[in-house]
């Protein structure tokens, strides 16, 4: 049995009740008296110079309050910050001078209703002079390619080749070298709620109030920078329920625009994206990445070294997207004991909507590239795919294990988790089923993936890719307050997009204090009240917010013990805290209960230890464990602190006629250390696998030869339904992290980090009897069907008449 009373137990969450009764409060539910609505005029061109903009007809429409262009925005706001130093790349909410992708916002219309704003947007006339444009990132690097940002002089936004260890020597020593090329298509997490923001300029206090469906580190800081306001003139209300994000709800351009409009017009203004605005110009597309991977390995499957080139099509504005090439540096060898690595990261601008953070921050594509290369090594050597993985796994006794790029993995037992999962999947029987299906003439395959989820995120990728950025602090915070009647309230510094932070904090605080988590209230501060934090990104909150809550609760216990020691006249080390009461170890009858202790703290200063602050409250701000170091000159750095492991085993069948992939069975072994709430962790894993299946089989922001996005609706951009997602069997394992208060690691990106690789592995296993390999995600039915048809044609030709 667990040592914990609440942690790790099945318990109902604190959040779900309001959602099942329709009482959530999302940004679209925030209404203010006299609120105005924004609609946008979108660019129809992938690149064009903006000529005259005629707003007269729009302004003449009754109910229209303002029509704003990029020129005006550029006069009154600073460009939006992006992660790199890129002279000549100026990013504003509305296009200035030229448009750079289809869907870019050109004009904003503010009106009394969204209906009127949309009507008026249709009346705005913009003269465009189309320019040459480029949609393919390889073409964008060619000499003479049209420039996405002419003032920058190049479409190359980032390129660096890192060499960690003796790559040349290891390649020379190895018996074999094998190159593979894979492509991760442009998709995203696409929450069902689009992005929205409401802002109101509070004239009495010179304060901008903001409600937004936000998941964004340093969001208020960025708004303050862009709006030329002091940071304490912006109050972001973190008590807004966010309708899904999984990385993408960054919304900085939306928020700067609406903040500017609210202050200009002195009225509350709201912008809720419609679905097309969200898909075409919401700046929420994910990585779009080509990989070249070469492994150097021995005849027994030992992999000595890896060379990886990752070329990412980041779209028009960089945002945080190039940094998504940097985060995987912290798990660049996956769970494998690869001794040396060469990694070339290339970020290229094209005339497409901007890329933003997506679940895993670039790790899922990287894992797909690594896992595909491992499968190919197995095929090359005629080895079992899992045997190759086991041959190279870091062993449980080797932790902490430093990988070539300088990160220490904290703990793990990859062999044990895989063994457990193989047993649960009854792998031999699963293989027999696959083979029986094949014997019937069907295309069946089994896929594997074994990979890591870096968690507890710090921003070490920022200084790694941008030496001008020396940020090494990525704290999270929690305040715990005991009121005068003994009730406990915890305050957190972030909004929540379904991760269950209230449950997390109540569970951890309850565990520490020995109180039922149901009795602990958890509230979201606004950004002015909040202690410093960095938002729930990077699988960090179980670790960082859980750690901060535990730290604050432990301080409460210390204070209570000090009060008891003073009143019982006993040394603290002879006292013990249990469920709110303090007992004398030498005389159990000598005790002070919670009500008495709280009363002393709040009401009886004469009984307080001398010098102790009245009341009973504590704040805890926690830096990421092992954080706080800058990268070395050769680009070695401690990236995230904690490393969760997952392994996938999937059986799929492909319809020969349509190319449709049906997933028959799915098993995932998962080790994220100590689990705080099993239903929440399992839910994230199920959802992550579903995202991964979508990215692997269906979802793609496809552009046509005219630079138009052709997947701007849910009819064209296919999200998996309950029919496409199978029953999933999760296999739990726990290797505690030595770095966190309860041994917890992160799990917010679990499933997604390995599922795409597992699907690809299964599909390619199914196609292997035909000699077909597909090296591109998503593996649309049409893409598979085409490969099958090509093969049939090829066979027909060869057989001849």
């Amino acid at each position: 049995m667990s040592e914990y009373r609440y942690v790790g137990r099945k318990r109902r969450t604190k959040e779900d009740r309001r959602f099942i009764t329709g009482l959530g409060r999302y940004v679209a539910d925030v209404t203010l008296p006299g609120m105005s609505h924004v609609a946008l005029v979108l660019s129809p061109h992938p690149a064009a110079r903006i000529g005259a903009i005629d707003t007269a007809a729009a302004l003449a429409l009754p109910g229209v309050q303002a029509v704003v262009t990029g020129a005006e925005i550029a006069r009154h706001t600073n460009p939006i910050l992006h992660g790199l130093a890129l002279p000549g790349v100026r990013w504003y909410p509305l296009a200035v001078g030229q448009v750079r992708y289809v869907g870019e916002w050109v004009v904003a219309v503010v009106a009394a209703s969204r209906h009127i704003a949309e009507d008026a947007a249709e009346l705005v006339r913009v003269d465009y002079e189309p320019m040459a444009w480029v949609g393919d990132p390889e073409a964008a690097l060619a000499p003479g390619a049209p420039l996405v940002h002419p003032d920058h002089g190049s479409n190359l936004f980032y390129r660096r080749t890192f060499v960690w260890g003796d790559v040349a020597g290891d390649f020379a020593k190895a018996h074999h070298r094998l190159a593979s090329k894979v492509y991760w298509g442009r998709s995203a997490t696409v929450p069902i709620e689009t992005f929205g923001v409401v802002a109101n300029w509070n004239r009495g206090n010179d304060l901008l109030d903001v409600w937004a469906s936000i998941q964004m580190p340093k969001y208020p800081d960025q708004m303050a920078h862009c709006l030329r306001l002091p940071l304490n003139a912006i109050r972001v209300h973190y008590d807004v329920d966010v309708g899904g994000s999984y990385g993408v709800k960054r919304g900085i351009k939306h928020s700067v625009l609406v903040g500017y409009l609210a202050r200009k017009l002195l009225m509350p203004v709201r912008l809720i994206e419609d679905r097309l605005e969200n898909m075409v110009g919401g700046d929420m597309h994910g990585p779009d990445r080509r990989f070249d991977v070469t492994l150097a390995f021995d005849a027994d499957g030992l992999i000595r070294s890896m060379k990886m080139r990752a070329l990412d099509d980041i779209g028009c504005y960089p945002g945080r997207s190039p940094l998504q090439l940097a985060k995987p540096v912290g798990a660049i060898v996956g769970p494998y004991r690869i001794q040396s690595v060469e990694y070339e990261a290339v970020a290229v601008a094209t005339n497409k909507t901007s890329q933003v953070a997506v679940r895993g921050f670039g790790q899922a594509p990287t894992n797909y590239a690594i896992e595909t290369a491992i499968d190919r090594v197995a095929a090359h050597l005629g080895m079992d795919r899992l045997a190759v993985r086991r041959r190279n796994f870091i062993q449980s006794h080797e932790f902490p294990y430093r990988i070539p790029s300088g990160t220490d993995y904290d703990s793990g037992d990859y062999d044990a988790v895989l063994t457990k999962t193989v047993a649960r999947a009854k792998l031999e029987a699963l293989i027999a089923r696959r083979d029986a299906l094949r014997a019937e003439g069907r295309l069946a395959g089994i896929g594997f993936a074994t990979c890591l989820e870096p968690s507890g995120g710090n921003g070490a990728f920022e200084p790694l890719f941008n030496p001008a950025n020396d940020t090494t602090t990525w704290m999270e915070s929690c305040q715990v307050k005991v009121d005068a009647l003994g009730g406990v309230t915890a305050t957190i510094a972030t909004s929540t997009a379904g991760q269950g932070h209230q449950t997390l904090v109540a569970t951890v605080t309850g565990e520490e204090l020995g109180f039922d988590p149901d009795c602990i209230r958890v509230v979201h501060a606004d950004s002015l009240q909040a202690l410093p934090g960095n938002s729930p990104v990077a699988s960090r909150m179980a670790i960082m917010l859980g750690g901060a809550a535990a730290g604050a609760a432990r301080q409460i216990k210390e204070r209570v013990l000090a009060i008891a020691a003073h009143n019982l006249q006993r040394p603290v080390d002879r006292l013990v805290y249990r469920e709110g009461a303090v007992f004398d170890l030498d005389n159990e009858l000598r005790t002070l209960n919670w009500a008495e202790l709280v009363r002393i703290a709040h009401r009886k200063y004469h009984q307080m230890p001398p010098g102790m602050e009245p009341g009973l409250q504590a704040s805890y701000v926690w830096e990421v464990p092992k954080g706080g170091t800058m990268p070395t000159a050769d680009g070695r750095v401690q990236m995230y602190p904690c490393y969760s492991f997952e392994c996938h085993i999937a059986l799929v069948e492909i319809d020969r006629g349509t190319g449709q992939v049906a997933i028959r069975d799915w098993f995932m072994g998962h080790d994220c250390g100590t689990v705080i709430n099993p239903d929440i962790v399992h839910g994230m894993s199920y959802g992550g696998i579903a995202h991964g299946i979508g990215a692997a089989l269906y979802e793609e922001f496809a552009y046509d030869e005219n630079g138009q996005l052709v997947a701007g609706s849910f009819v064209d951009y296919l999200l998996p339904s309950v029919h496409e997602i199978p029953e999933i069997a999760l296999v739990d394992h726990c290797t505690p992290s030595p770095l966190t208060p309860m041994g917890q690691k992160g799990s917010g990106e679990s499933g997604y980090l390995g599922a795409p690789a597992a699907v690809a592995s299964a599909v390619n296993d199914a196609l292997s009897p035909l000699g077909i390999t597909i090296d591109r995600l998503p593996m649309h039915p049409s893409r598979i069907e085409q490969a099958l048809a090509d093969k049939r044609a090829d066979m027909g030709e060869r057989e001849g008449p």
Partner: protein
Amino acid sequence: MNRQAVRLTVNGKPWHGEVPTRLTLVDCLREEVGLTGTHVGCEHGVCGACSVLLDGEPVRSCLMFAVQADGRAITTVEGLAAPDGALSPLQDAFWECHALQCGYCTPGMLIAAHALIARNPAPSDGDIREALAGNLCRCTGYQQIVDAVRLARRRMGEVPP
């Protein structure tokens, strides 16, 4: 702008008002009736977040105008619990199974599940998946939602003591 009078019965209570003829039913429910539990997801009838029961049948409230619902009875997520606030067996099972994360698709999922149970109190697993297939969720991978409907099915099938 054309406006037209509309009379609805929403969660058992009469409501009437004059609304723009182009106002969708979901916008009417959210902005005029004041019930924000029904959510807008795609506005083109795919995601199901805006599902409500119209005379007991699940419909996409983003795909019809409020004026088309004149004289009809509508049930939204706010109307699923008993008048005393007791959760419906499906709501309770959703909580028990943590059949949600962000909660945005949840009202539509609950409406779809209630419509299923109303017409088929003992649905098979296949029936459950069929009934939920018109509602998209990005958080859960659907598993805990299916689990919740199964749990409600089992509990509702139990003979009371």
